[in-house]
């Protein structure tokens, strides 16, 4: 994300009552609960088109139209040529293809909208048609699409076939050691582009140098930008440190544009200037920037953004970052605001621009809103899913927190895995990550030493290598960085000096990597639309065009890529579960012995409660899901039964592992007709011999939160039922944990071990239990 020149900030106006559940007797307290949700930190705005608060239908949005005579435009979108503002003029002169416009504009918007979601209409035909469409027409067409149609059309229309992603690498201290380490980590996670900016503007040269070194660790090809003041950013680019730029913001009204201190011509000049230095460039625009800046002209977010996008195509930039960007939080306060962000991304790719699809400035405190917003882009694919995911922690994100940051990166990796959708990232092994961070720090220190920029201590380096964020480092302060940065600038250090320094100090691979990125400039291949570098090759919309034409076409995960997405950390395997259980075996064997005594007889004394355990209980499995040793569970149940005058008898059941049938079979053996079924994972049931299998007396289904006291209570109640009493059922209180998510993989693996030991028709087996030690 680029920093726009104007932004409005301020704390949310929400005040929370000291008592979160205040409201007295005349309030349904559910509303008090809702008040405490993160969602309620978000403020929402009423639709108010006159004051610029309209996503799709502005008070003064013009109707689409074009009048052409003698090869000249007489009017565009109802505005006579004589009244064109500078944006209209630029679009009319440089975007519109006058030969095509009459034909394209004559098509009904509904028909074009249908073409956008029709797999039979090729992307190339729609991209060609867009050369003849005006901003109001483009807006009118995409406004007809529902959210799912927008996402679908986006997946068809986006420019490059292979999806990618962009990350932020910044920190609150502008610490170059941390920048290098974090850049190296971001590269390993798979970002195609990384972007830095500063807390202190004069630290830009240091940030640029540090990130360029960090980005050369491990592999080459990650493009890098240093978001700074336009003039300085270009100078840093000319010194060779950066390979792309996206701070070139454009706006949809003339007043906002000049207030942003530029014009379409100055920005277009800048675009050509970047290209002339061999630097990839995209523009920045997005909903609500004009509203934030106070010059919205009572027009909708979508129409103004359509103007921005036509302008960008007119300027001849290869791409854009849009989808709200700085304005995303404001757009999201409006009805349909998030759908509008999707609509404007669609216009961008329809105009054949590379699109970094926002999902950048965090639009909500609600993790649900954040996850929902990213999903369409993740499953549709995008040139750059985020135009800046925070690869660093929120507080270190000098652009402001992103939708996803260092904190949430693993959530994103799992979403990719869930949907088998390529969001451009991959997991990184823990030890590999640390190794890369240390390598980056050492490489930067070598450059510092060689170029006389500083000599960080071992303690500084170590603190940075292991730090999750800058709060944990004992490294450079922003003031110290300023001296380094100004020295880099004053000495005129350029990227070749850094490459040579790396090579001289033995970092030859890194020197080669950095040189490869700079060398991209010579051919300029990476200036084409949506170019990124993958495995040492430039891919772009030219040689990797999105050719989606229905199922089986377009981007599909290769088997290898699918494996990469699946390879998140800490994945359970059957072997691991068995290994873990085996480690408990030795301890359990010291606490308890089970002696098999042959077929268990039916019926005993009237106060007898039979406890039927599962096939693998104490043989292959030794602990409940809550972590209680099975010996302790048996002891608690037995003590509970005896405490209420009952007599426990233990049997092992081999014909079933199902709790209900364990319980019912045990009950049928018991003199009292009351039995307890108990699985090794801790699920337990009290049953009665005359009941239907699944109509038990009491069930403990939440084994992970069942305590030994609960098991004792279960035993007590079983004994009370045996006496014909009606006790208060034992309740295992749940706080609503998603126990299925936490345990079901383990449960399935454990349960498979139980079922593998079952034998059809096996008789209940009497077992004698001896406790070897006192209870823990």
């Amino acid at each position, binding site marked *: 994300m680029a920093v726009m020149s104007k932004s409005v900030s301020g704390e949310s106006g929400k005040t929370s009552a000291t008592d979160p559940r205040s409201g007295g007797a005349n309030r349904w307290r559910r509303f008090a609960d809702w008040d405490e949700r993160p969602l309620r930190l978000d403020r929402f705005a009423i639709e108010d088109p006159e004051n610029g608060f309209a996503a799709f239908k502005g008070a003064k949005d013009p109707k689409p139209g074009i009048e052409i005579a003698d090869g000249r435009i007489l009017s565009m979108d109802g505005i006579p040529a004589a009244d064109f503002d500078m944006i209209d003029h630029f679009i009319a002169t440089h975007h519109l293809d006058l030969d095509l416009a009459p034909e394209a504009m004559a098509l009904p918007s509904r028909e074009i909208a249908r073409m956008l979601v029709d797999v039979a209409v090729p992307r190339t035909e729609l991209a060609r048609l867009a050369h003849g469409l005006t901003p109001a027409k483009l807006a009118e067409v995409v406004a007809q699409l529902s959210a799912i149609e927008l996402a679908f059309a986006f997946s068809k229309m986006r420019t490059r076939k292979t999806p990618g992603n962009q990350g932020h690498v910044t920190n609150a201290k502008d610490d170059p050691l941390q920048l290098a380490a974090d850049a190296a980590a971001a590269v390993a996670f798979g970002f195609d582009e990384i972007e830095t900016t500063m807390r202190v503007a004069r630290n830009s040269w240091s940030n640029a140098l540090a990130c360029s070194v960090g980005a050369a660790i491990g592999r080459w090809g990650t493009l890098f930008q240093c978001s700074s003041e336009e003039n300085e950013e270009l100078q840093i680019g*000319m010194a060779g440190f950066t390979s792309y730029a996206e701070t070139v913001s454009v706006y949809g009204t003339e007043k906002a544009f000049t207030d942003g201190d*530029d014009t379409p011509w100055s920005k277009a000049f800048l675009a050509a200037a970047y*290209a002339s230095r061999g630097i990839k460039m995209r523009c920045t625009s997005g909903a609500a920037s004009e509203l934030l800046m106070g010059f919205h002209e009572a027009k909708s977010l979508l129409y103004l953004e359509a103007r921005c996008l036509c302008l960008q195509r007119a300027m001849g930039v290869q791409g854009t970052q849009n989808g709200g960007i700085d304005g995303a939080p404001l757009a999201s306060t409006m009805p349909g605001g998030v759908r509008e962000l999707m609509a404007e991304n669609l216009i961008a790719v329809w105009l054949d621009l590379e699109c970094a699809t926002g999902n950048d400035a965090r639009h909500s405190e609600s993790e649900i809103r954040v996850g929902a917003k990213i999903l369409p882009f993740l499953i549709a694919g995008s040139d750059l899913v985020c135009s800046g995911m925070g690869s660093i922690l929120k507080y270190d994100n000098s652009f402001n927190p992103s939708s996803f940051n260092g904190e949430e990166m693993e959530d994103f990796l799992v979403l990719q895995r869930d949907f088998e959708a390529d969001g451009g990232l991959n997991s990184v092994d823990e030890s590999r990550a640390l190794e890369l961070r240390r390598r980056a720090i050492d490489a930067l220190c070598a450059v510092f030493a060689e170029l006389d920029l500083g000599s960080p201590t071992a303690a500084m380096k170590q603190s940075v290598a292991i730090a999750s964020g800058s709060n944990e480092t004992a490294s450079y302060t922003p003031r110290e960085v300023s001296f380094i940065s100004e020295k880099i600038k004053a000495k005129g250090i350029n990227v070749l000096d850094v490459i040579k320094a790396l090579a001289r100090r033995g970092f030859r691979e890194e020197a080669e990597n950095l*040189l490869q990125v700079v060398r991209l400039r010579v051919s300029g291949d990476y200036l084409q639309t949506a170019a990124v570098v993958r495995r040492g090759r430039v891919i772009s919309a030219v040689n990797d065009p999105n050719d989606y034409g229905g199922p089986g076409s377009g981007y599909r995960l290769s088997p290898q890529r699918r494996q990469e997405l699946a390879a998140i950390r800490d994945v359970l395997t059957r072997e691991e579960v068995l290994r873990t259980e085996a480690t408990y075996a030795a301890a359990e064997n010291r606490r308890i012995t089970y002696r098999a005594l042959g077929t268990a007889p039916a019926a005993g004394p009237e106060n007898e409660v039979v406890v039927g355990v599962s096939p693998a209980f104490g043989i292959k499995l030794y602990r409940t899901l809550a972590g209680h040793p099975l010996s302790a569970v048996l002891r608690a149940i037995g003590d509970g039964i005896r405490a209420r005058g009952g007599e426990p008898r233990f049997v092992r059941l081999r014909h079933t592992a199902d709790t209900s049938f364990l319980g019912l079979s045990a009950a049928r053996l018991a003199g009292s007709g009351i039995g307890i079924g108990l699985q090794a994972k801790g699920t337990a049931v009290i049953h009665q011999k005359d009941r239907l299998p699944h109509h038990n007396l009491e069930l403990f289904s939440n084994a992970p939160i069942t305590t030994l006291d609960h098991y004792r209570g279960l035993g007590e109640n079983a004994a009370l039922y045996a006496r014909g009493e009606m006790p208060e059922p034992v309740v295992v209180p749940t706080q609503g944990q998603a126990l299925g998510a936490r345990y079901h993989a383990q449960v399935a693996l454990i349960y498979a071990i139980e079922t593998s030991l079952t034998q059809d028709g096996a008789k209940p087996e009497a077992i004698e239990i001896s406790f070897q030690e006192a209870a823990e």
Partner: protein
Amino acid sequence: MSGPADRNGRIRGIADYPLAEKRPEIVKSARGKPLKDLTLAAVEAGEVTLEDLGITPQALLDQAAIAAKAGRPTLARNFARAAELVEVPQDVLLRIYELLRPGRAGNKDEVLAAARELRETYNAPTMAAFVEEAAEIYERRGLFTFRY
């Protein structure tokens, strides 16, 4: 777009892209070095300078031809304008950019002078015409006004 590159048939089609891979023989540094000579060893030996690692007007025209053949005429025109700016020194570039920002020029003549400089000193006719267009519109829209 039909630039000189196109006319000479240097670029046969988008199959020539990426040039560094498919047509390495036509990619040369500003000082005439082929890509394969731009090695780390050459950098260490001082044989490769930052100038060798910039883009050339010819490479931009070649990319313009590719962009045009890929159906992106406006991108091609930007590359063509960029080709004219390669030889323009950094300080001049930044000065003209600054002049094009709102309120920097007090009147149309200052902008027209910059256009003349581009055309006459740097042989950048397309860019010059583009700057002249800006001067015209700035005047019409009242941009020659005090800002700070």
